[in-house]
C-alpha cells in the first residue's frame, strides 16, 4: 500500500465524522438530562472550557505561532490557525469596536452542524455549538487572557450567518511585550 491507512481520504472523513457525531450524541444526551435550554448551553460552555484549557497546549505544540502583540492578532490566529487545524474551516474576522477589544468570527460553514438540519422541537434557545465558545474562552484563559465569548448570531436559529463574538476583558499590558524585544 502506498499510503498509511489512516491517511486515506475515506478514513480522514470518518475521523472528522466521529467528532461531529459524538458531539451530536452529547447534545442529545444533555437535552434529555436538562429541561431548560439555558442549562444545556451552560454545560456545553463548561465542557468546552475544560477542553479549551487542555487543547491550547496541543495547539501551541502543533503550530509554532509567533508571540502576539494585539488582540486582533490573537483573533486572527484563532480564526486562521486554530479553527483551520481542528475544524478545517477559516472563519472571517471583523472588529466590533474602535478600541479593538471586541471581535467577531463569522462562520460561513460549520462542520459541527453538518448532520443537523434544525434545532430539536421545543429547543429554540439552544446554542447548539456552545462548546466552541467555552473552548475559546478556556484556551485564552490558559494564556492569561480573560474574554467573554458568546454566539451573536446562529444559522440554526434563522440568522443568515453564525457569528461568535469575542470580547477581551482586560487591556493587554503593552509594556510587558515591549520589554521582550
Amino acid at each position, binding site marked *: 500500500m502506498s499510503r498509511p*491507512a*489512516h491517511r486515506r481520504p*475515506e*478514513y*480522514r*472523513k*470518518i*475521523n*472528522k*465524522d*466521529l*467528532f461531529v*457525531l*459524538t*458531539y451530536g*450524541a*452529547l447534545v*442529545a*444526551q444533555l437535552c434529555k*438530562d436538562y429541561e431548560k435550554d439555558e442549562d444545556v448551553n451552560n*454545560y456545553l460552555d*463548561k*465542557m468546552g472550557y*475544560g*477542553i479549551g484549557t*487542555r*487543547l491550547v497546549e*496541543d495547539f501551541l505544540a*502543533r503550530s509554532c505561532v509567533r508571540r502576539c502583540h494585539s488582540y486582533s492578532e490573537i483573533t486572527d490566529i484563532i480564526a486562521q490557525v486554530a479553527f483551520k*487545524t*481542528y*475544524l478545517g474551516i477559516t472563519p472571517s474576522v471583523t472588529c466590533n469596536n474602535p478600541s479593538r477589544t471586541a471581535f467577531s468570527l463569522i462562520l460561513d460553514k460549520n462542520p459541527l452542524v453538518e*448532520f443537523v438540519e434544525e434545532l430539536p422541537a421545543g429547543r429554540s434557545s439552544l446554542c447548539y455549538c456552545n*462548546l466552541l465558545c467555552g473552548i475559546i474562552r478556556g484556551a485564552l484563559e490558559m494564556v492569561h487572557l480573560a474574554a467573554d465569548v458568546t454566539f451573536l448570531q446562529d444559522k440554526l436559529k434563522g440568522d443568515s450567518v453564525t457569528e461568535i463574538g469575542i470580547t477581551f476583558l482586560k487591556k493587554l499590558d503593552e509594556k510587558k511585550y515591549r520589554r521582550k524585544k
Partner: protein
Amino acid sequence: MADAALFEFLHMEMVAELWSHHYDPGPGGQKMSLSVLEGMGFRVGQALGERLPQETLAFREELDVLKFLCKDLWVAVFQKQMDSLRANHQGTYVLQDNSFPLLIRMASGLQYLEEAPKFLAFTCGLLRGTLSTLGIKSLVTASVASLPTCKFQVVIQKT
C-alpha cells in the same frame, strides 16, 4: 491528527460530565452511568457504520467483519490497528489493544484501574453500533488488567 485530539478531549469531558450527572451512589449506580455512555457510543457507531466505504458491506464471514473492526475501523477512529484478535469460533472474540488511546493520558499500570471502565464504555457502544449496522447483533464489554492495555470482548448474539 488534530481531529483525533479534539475527539479525545471531548471524550474526556463527556466521561467527567455524564458520570457525575448520572452517578447514583446506590447499588447499580455505576451501571446507569456506564450505560448512558455506552448508549451514546452505540448511536455514534451506528452512524459511523453507515458511512463506511461500500466495499466493507460485502463481507462473507463473521470473522472478516471482526478483522475489519480491528484493522480499518480502529485505524479510522484511533489511528492504529488493534493489537490482537482471538476467536473461539463459537461467536466470542477478544480484541486487545496494548495502548488504547483513550487510556493513554491516564497513568500506566495499576493506578486508576477503577476509573478505567468509564473510559471504555463509549467505545464498547461504538463497536456494538458499528456491528449492528453491519447486520450483527452483539454484546460488547471491556476489561483492563493494566493501563493502557485493554481487551474488548465481543459476543455475537444469535437471533
